[in-house]
């Protein structure tokens, strides 16, 4: 167990803050451009980047124990399992050929 605490410099916080603001602007801008099928992935990618910045620096995950990362990883994995399982049903509906199969 690490007992000493990592003090993050406010410069880092401000840097992360500026990046988050910039990414917010970017995602609004990107939504106005027709990227074809890529609009949604780009929006999600930007959101994930922002979330990672918040988690790593504002929430100190970068400086926390591995267990905290494990909790985050488990949550994301389970969220994916939930969505993947449900989506698997909707995407494969009707493959057999009659309605409701």
């Amino acid at each position: 167990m690490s007992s000493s605490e990592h003090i993050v410099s406010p410069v880092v916080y401000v840097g992360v803050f500026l990046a988050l603001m910039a990414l917010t602007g970017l995602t609004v801008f990107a939504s106005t451009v027709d990227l074809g099928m890529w609009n949604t992935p780009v929006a999600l990618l930007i959101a994930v980047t922002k979330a990672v910045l918040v988690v790593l620096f504002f929430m100190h995950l970068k400086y926390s124990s591995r267990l905290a990362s494990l909790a985050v990883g488990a949550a994301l994995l389970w969220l994916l399992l939930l969505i993947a399982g449900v989506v698997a049903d909707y995407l494969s509906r009707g493959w057999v050929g009659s309605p409701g199969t």
Partner: protein
Amino acid sequence: MGAELPLFPVQASTMAGRVDALYAFLITVSVFFGLLIAVTLVSFAIRYRRRSRDERPQPIEGSVALEVAWSAIPLGIVMVIFLWGADLFFAMARVPPAPMEVYVVGKRWMWKTQHLGGQREINELHVPVGVPVKLTMTSEDVIHSFFVPAFRMKKDVVPGRYATAWFQATRAGTYHLFCAEYCGTKHSGMIGSVTVMEPAAFQAWLAGGATGTSLAAAGEKLFQDLACITCHRSDSEGRGPRLEGVFGQPVTLASGERVVADEAYVRESIVNPTAKVVAGFQPVMPTYQGLVNEEGLMQLVAYVKSLGGAATVGPGAALASPAPAAASPAPPPRPKGQGR
């Protein structure tokens, strides 16, 4: 009342024997492993019972070989069961070609069935022996489930969409029809019967119940009453797509997607017309949700179907069902079952 104690339900469909075979296999596996565990457990418990208060048996750590064996062998067995069950399930999901068609609406707390010839029944369904019967089902309110134990057949009937199921009866008789999905107060009263008849008797029954208006004809009347005909013209000049020959065929949508115009697509296009607009047409059609009930929708579907399309429709109706696909009343006496 039950003097004898039945253990197995009657087998009255082509699936029943196949399901029972898997059931028998699973019972064999279960009895084997159940006995194996029970006998081993009890005999160890007796053989190695504690003989003195301070007895300390020799410790045994475990055995990799045993762990592998009793993981791998059950895994092999369950994979056999999995494949067997999956094979059966796909056979149940794939409707055989040229079935006789029946439309079913579940409504608290009754089953309403309609034949292509226009015959309607409540809490009853009459079918001939030896002909595959395809059920297209929906619900007007909550989820129901169409369950005929003698056919080993069950399918949930969900509001807002179509469910498909099929069976081929093999034995004349009258069998239970249950609602198997809890649907409220009189759930246990939502029961009825499926009567399987010899072909000749079925023909006679059909003739007796004929209303003079086939399902498709009723649909055609609805089609005119609702003024669908003003846009969906047969000369391809209407604001909507021409419907002749569409059914069962792939349709290209405005979005570029391709979908098959099956029962579910036709129904959706009536209640939610802008969901999947055909390429080259404007999303101008209003919804008919609420204007037509589920039975009416099924009549419209039957009508669109009768306008022809892929091979699944025309010959199917003609072959399997003695009722005519289109308007005119049926000439009842016709030898049945030239399905193959």
